[in-house]
């Protein structure tokens, strides 16, 4: 039977909202500034922007404050906000070779043109609780900043801030699949030529552009779990991380005056290219590559996305991670959390009917025996 709603409870709900606010503030500490969240919880902010599918760092930080740090709730709020703002433009396709890199590593080659740059990472740091951080105050922070920046102003090397990609080098050698100029390219990627999962219903099989869009807004926990299942053995991808990049890409739109382009600013993204085992198409063994790109600094997400991009390319899906419908239907954080949360709403009538049915079945069975 269908869902039967309930009514009433207005006063209790209003009081519950007040109580929620009380719980956030009852500690008596100074109210946290949104700017502090944006600056100091930057990875949480990036996660919320990615899953909320809206690049708006300040509002993502505000959503995190409102959600008391719950990233799924915050991305829900951000996505709801997004739906109130009109979409007026489509950007020119971002070319990630123009990225201003802050981090770039390869697990496939130790020598890559332009070199490897660790950037801001805790990959090589022991996960020990930093008790000193508990003592951090404004004075210490200022002291650190002054010391860190010293010498950078004068000793700044003039160097390239953009690098060619590892995958392009492999392609030049004929080791990976050729760049396929798709039908799509002829139109220059105008709004009507690129599938948009926010505007059209997803059907399966889903074109790769739709899969990439769904993953770019996917929830990291869900994506990581499914990608991990493939890494562990429910599938045979055996990935090597060709390249992982974090940096700023220029965002441009066609100029509103009608000619040329207009630069709007730079957007922080993470990009991953995962090299998988040989695919033996038309007899020539080659590498296959999976691609990941998401808002903000979110390495696990970009890597999971690249792996799932590869697994979902399976011609005959055997494992969950290879099944497009399985993957794409379960990685959206707003959908999954919304569905799980809805079980908390009153189901009194539906459950009553279950009860009635169970009782009458038991009764019939008892009569028979």
């Amino acid at each position, binding site marked *: 039977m269908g869902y039967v709603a309930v009514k009433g409870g207005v006063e209790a709900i209003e009081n519950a909202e007040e109580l929620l606010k009380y719980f956030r503030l009852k500690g008596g500490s100074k109210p946290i500034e949104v700017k502090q969240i944006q600056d100091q919880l930057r990875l949480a902010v990036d996660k919320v922007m990615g899953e909320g599918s809206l690049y*708006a760092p300040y509002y993502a930080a505000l959503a995190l404050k409102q959600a008391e740090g719950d990233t799924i709730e915050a991305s829900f709020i951000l996505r709801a906000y997004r739906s109130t703002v009109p979409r007026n433009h489509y950007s020119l396709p971002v070319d990630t070779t123009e990225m201003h890199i802050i981090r770039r590593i390869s697990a496939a080659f130790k020598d890559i043109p332009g070199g490897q740059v660790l950037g801001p990472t805790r990959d090589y740091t022991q996960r020990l609780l930093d008790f000193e951080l508990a003592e951090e105050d404004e004075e210490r922070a200022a002291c650190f900043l002054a010391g860190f920046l010293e010498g950078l102003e004068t000793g700044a090397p003039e160097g390239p801030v953009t690098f060619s990609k590892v995958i392009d080098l492999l392609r030049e050698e004929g080791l990976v699949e050729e760049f396929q100029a798709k039908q799509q390219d002829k139109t220059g990627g105008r709004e009507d030529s690129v599938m948009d*999962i926010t505007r059209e219903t997803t059907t399966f099989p889903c074109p790769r552009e739709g899969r990439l869009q769904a993953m770019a807004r996917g929830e990291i926990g869900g994506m990581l779990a499914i990608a991990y299942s493939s890494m562990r053995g429910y599938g045979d991808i055996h990935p090597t991380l060709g390249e992982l990049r974090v940096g700023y890409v220029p965002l441009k739109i066609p100029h509103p005056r009608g000619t040329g382009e207009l630069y709007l600013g730079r957007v922080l993204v993470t990009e991953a290219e995962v090299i998988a085992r040989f695919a033996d198409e038309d007899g020539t063994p080659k590498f296959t590559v999976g691609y990941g*790109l998401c808002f903000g600094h979110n390495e696990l997400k970009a890597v999971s996305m690249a792996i799932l991009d590869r697994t979902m390319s399976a011609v005959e899906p055997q494992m969950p991670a290879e099944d497009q419908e399985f993957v794409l239907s379960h990685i959206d954080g707003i959908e999954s959390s919304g569905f799980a949360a809805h079980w908390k709403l009153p189901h009194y009538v539906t459950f009553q009917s279950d009860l009635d049915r169970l009782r009458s079945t038991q009764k019939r069975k008892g009569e028979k025996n």
Partner: protein
Amino acid sequence: MNSATLSRVLAEGDGDFLQEVAEKVLDIAEVKVIKQPATGLVMMRARDSVEGIIFNVGEVLVTECEVELDGARGWGYMLGDEPAKALAVAVIDAAINAGHRFKDEMLRLLGEQREELERKRRVEFAMMDRTRVKFETMEAIK
């Protein structure tokens, strides 16, 4: 300054600086607001590096507005919800497009701002460059 550089300086320049420059224009010129600053979304598209297909990555919040000065249009775009900055950018853009008498002075100021942005870029590169790494392969563990 070519238009690509100009749009970079306007998009990334210091907000207070841009507003000061715009104020100077507003003191001596009449500016008509064609489109009030309002938030809008830009769907960001990217080209993947495997097949070269274009896909929708997600939307970016921007503020956009349009003004007119001496019959010339000016467009103001800014990442985020930044109505004052977007309006300042539009005013400056219109003044330059109109060949306003304050234009040369404005371009000089924007030139300084460009140098400041370049300096920031260099510092950013320098701190990244310090984490450049060269890993050595060890002997295989038998």
